[in-house]
């Protein structure tokens, strides 16, 4: 019996479990690329208009840090590649991470893998089947994106390069997830490691694209963008991810070949025989359960802030040789650096929303894991159980967003030699906290009123991201843009502070939280 016996059967089984999810991921990613092409075409009446807009975009450091290197932005293809490729790669990475986690470490953690492996199934079969399924999914993604763009009438070579870049980026993150799944005992920690790698990849290419480009070569997302889709394609950078995938999958196989089922790289250490003084009640428990995630998100967003803060000076350089652009911005009455930081602040707040949603979903996670029953059978009132996790979400959101601002402010204060930037930029970022809390409170409402589809709370983040990044380009109607809480927050520091919207957002968050609170107190706990 080969160590791969059973791979085929498992492949069909995994594929069956994933088929509906894959449809949604694929439709989402194809829409991301295709909608760019459609909307760019609709946006500009003449090529002259397009050229002017392109000039201002390619000098906007915030947009470059967010999207990628600006190339031929006065063509539809150039716009699609610029706007969609980085986010497409992140989405493909997240899809790969969740699929790998679901078929490898989550199965081991739950004990189901034991059941599978007790059959006529080789040691490597589940891993091989998972790799095959996720690779197929990424290839499908790439093919669909290429096909949809060629179908729209964009050049074949560029569309192909975009598709290949997307597939390979997804597969690199798949391999990272696969290796991470061999190292950690729990699937949560594995998501943490992989998510951090995706985040750092995104950040590195942002730094590289604004600066001298070196950092972009360290990023799997940068590798795809280095293929210069629609801008004189270069194909050899595709070799880098291929090598990376080979090395990472090989390493994962090697670790799997040596370890026990259910075990991670580090043997489990004994814990304390007694609960510490910190674990006094519901709040102590909630803190203990969420602190790992909170530390991870805080560190990630803090590093992101430092990265943005340290490139503040390059923002001015970018524009130095373009008189038209500086005139345009001067006319708008804004300061380049300030407008850069209003965008990065918003960006970090949206990332912090990821923490807020996952933290608010923790209540539901505890419930489905069957750990709430024993807790609520003690004299712990239900409201205090809800409040304990909600308080962590609230304070954690302030901390994560605040650290993003602090990182930005501290780094920019050092770079610019202007100490006042520290507090100024920290405050400018913190202004987004109420908007983040609106989404967190909405998550609580979903957990309370529609627990079965609680995971759908993530759609709120997707919605806010789409509105923020593509709202103008897609020419979304005003009411859709207004539905995102982030559309109402004043964009400090380039806009003046406005207290009214911030206050209204805070009250909205409070009201939603109250609805969620009451709903969750009243419903059955399963």
């Amino acid at each position, binding site marked *: 019996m080969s160590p791969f016996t059973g791979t085929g059967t498992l492949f069909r089984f995994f594929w069956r479990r994933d088929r509906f999810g894959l449809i949604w991921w694929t439709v989402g990613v194809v829409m991301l690329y295709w909608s760019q092409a459609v909307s760019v075409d609709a946006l500009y009446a003449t090529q002259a208009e397009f050229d002017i807009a392109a000039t201002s975009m390619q000098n906007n450091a915030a947009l470059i840090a967010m999207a990628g290197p600006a190339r031929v932005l006065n063509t539809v293809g150039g716009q699609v590649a610029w706007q969609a490729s980085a986010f497409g790669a992140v989405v493909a990475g997240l899809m790969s991470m969740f699929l790998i986690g679901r078929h490898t470490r989550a199965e081991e953690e739950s004990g189901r893998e034991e059941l599978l492996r007790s059959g006529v199934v080789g040691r490597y079969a589940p891993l091989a089947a998972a790799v095959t399924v996720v690779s197929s999914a990424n290839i499908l993604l790439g093919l669909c994106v290429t096909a949809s763009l060629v179908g729209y009438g964009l050049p074949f070579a560029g569309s192909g390069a975009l598709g290949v870049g997307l597939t390979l980026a997804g597969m690199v993150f798949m391999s990272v997830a696969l290796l991470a799944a061999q190292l950690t005992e729990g699937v949560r920690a594995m998501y943490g490691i992989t998510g951090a790698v995706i985040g750092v990849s995104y950040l590195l290419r942002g730094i590289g694209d604004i600066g001298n480009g070196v950092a972009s070569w360290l990023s799997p997302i940068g590798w795809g963008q280095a293929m210069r889709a629609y801008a004189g394609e270069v194909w050899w950078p595709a070799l880098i991810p291929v090598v990376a995938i080979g090395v990472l999958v090989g390493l994962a196989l090697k670790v799997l070949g040596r370890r026990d089922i259910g075990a991670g790289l580090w043997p489990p250490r004994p814990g304390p*025989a007694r609960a510490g003084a910190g674990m006094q*009640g519901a709040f102590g428990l909630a803190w203990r359960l969420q602190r790992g995630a909170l530390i991870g998100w805080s560190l990630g967003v803090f590093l992101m802030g430092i990265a943005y803060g340290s490139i503040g000076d390059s923002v001015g350089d970018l524009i130095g040789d373009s008189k038209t652009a500086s005139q345009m911005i001067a006319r708008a009455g804004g300061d380049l650096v300030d407008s850069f930081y209003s965008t990065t602040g918003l960006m970090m707040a949206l990332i912090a929303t990821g923490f807020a949603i996952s933290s608010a979903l923790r209540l539901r996670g505890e419930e489905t894991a069957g750990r709430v*029953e024993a807790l609520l059978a003690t004299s712990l009132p239900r409201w205090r159980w809800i409040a304990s996790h909600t308080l962590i979400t609230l304070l954690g959101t302030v901390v994560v967003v605040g650290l993003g601002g602090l990182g930005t402010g501290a780094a920019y204060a050092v770079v610019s030699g202007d100490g006042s930037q520290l507090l100024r930029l920290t405050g400018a970022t913190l202004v987004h906290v109420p908007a983040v809390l609106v989404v967190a409170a909405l998550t609580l409402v979903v957990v309370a009123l529609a627990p079965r589809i609680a995971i759908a709370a993530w759609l709120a983040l997707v919605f806010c991201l789409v509105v923020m990044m593509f709202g103008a380009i897609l020419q979304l109607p005003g009411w859709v843009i207004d539905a995102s809480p982030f559309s109402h927050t004043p964009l400090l520091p380039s806009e003046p502070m406005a207290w009214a919207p911030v206050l209204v957002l805070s009250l909205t968050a409070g009201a939603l939280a109250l609805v969620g609170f009451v709903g969750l107190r009243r419903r*059955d706990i399963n």
Partner: protein
Amino acid sequence: MRGMGDTRATDDAISIDGLEKSFGTTKALDGLDLRVASGEVHGFMGPNGSGKSTAIRVLLGLLRADAGTVELLGGDPWREAAALHRRLAYVPGDVNLWPNLSGGEVIDLLGRLRGGLNEHRRTSLLERFELDPTKKGRTYSKGNRQKVALVAALSSDAELLILDEPTSGLDPLMEAVFQECIGEVKNEGRTVLLSSHILAEVESLCDRVSIIRAGRTVESGTLADLRHLTRTSVLSETTRNPVGLDEIGGIHDLVVEGSRIHFEVDTASLGAALAKLGEFGIETLTSQPPTLEELFLRHYGDKIDNTNDPEEAQTR
């Protein structure tokens, strides 16, 4: 059934009348009645999926009753959940622990949330159940996870213990320790609701038993009460060949092989049957009292047909 408990309603630790609970279109509880008097160990029996755990979750205020009345320690379990829970301890049927917390931490946490635990008891229980409190939740086996929940519940001074199939993962030695512990709890005058389908356990521990099926109580009473509903199995050898026993009502499965006779007899007819047998000169006599197994079979099995449960009659 309903009238029975009225006179001592104030003494009841648990009193449920006509409880109904549906999940979508499935009816989990369909008119359940349950009375547990203070100070008794009450067996709560029924096959898988009969609604035992649902009933317990309603008692704990985790689920809201659709219809019927539920009283727990003299209060409403839904509205006064937290206050009532100070006075009870619970062991879930499926013990799920936090993967990163050690067993000791969980025991302390649950104890603190209940308003304190008995230190002396905690130490002695860890020893008796041979539980290592330093292992993480993720690394415990099913039986050890159950021990964590048992130690947490038993080290409290709660006046009511609600145990949902607490021994399904324990080995026979630990099962014996568990029975000892419940014996001590009983001697202290505390109340136990023990959900189980392990008959020997219920038989040796419980004062009274309620049997539920398809969300409804089908039998309730002391073990002695319930034995009236079953048959004693008699095996005898007589000097003369016995005849005419089949004329006595209440005798079933009669087999006569010369002087050897074997039959089952309804408890009500036991005296008449033995008197008749005496006429032929009894040489040996073995009789087996009805076991809970038989009670069980009567409600769920296919051995005894004269059931008065309409639902069961329909499925035949």
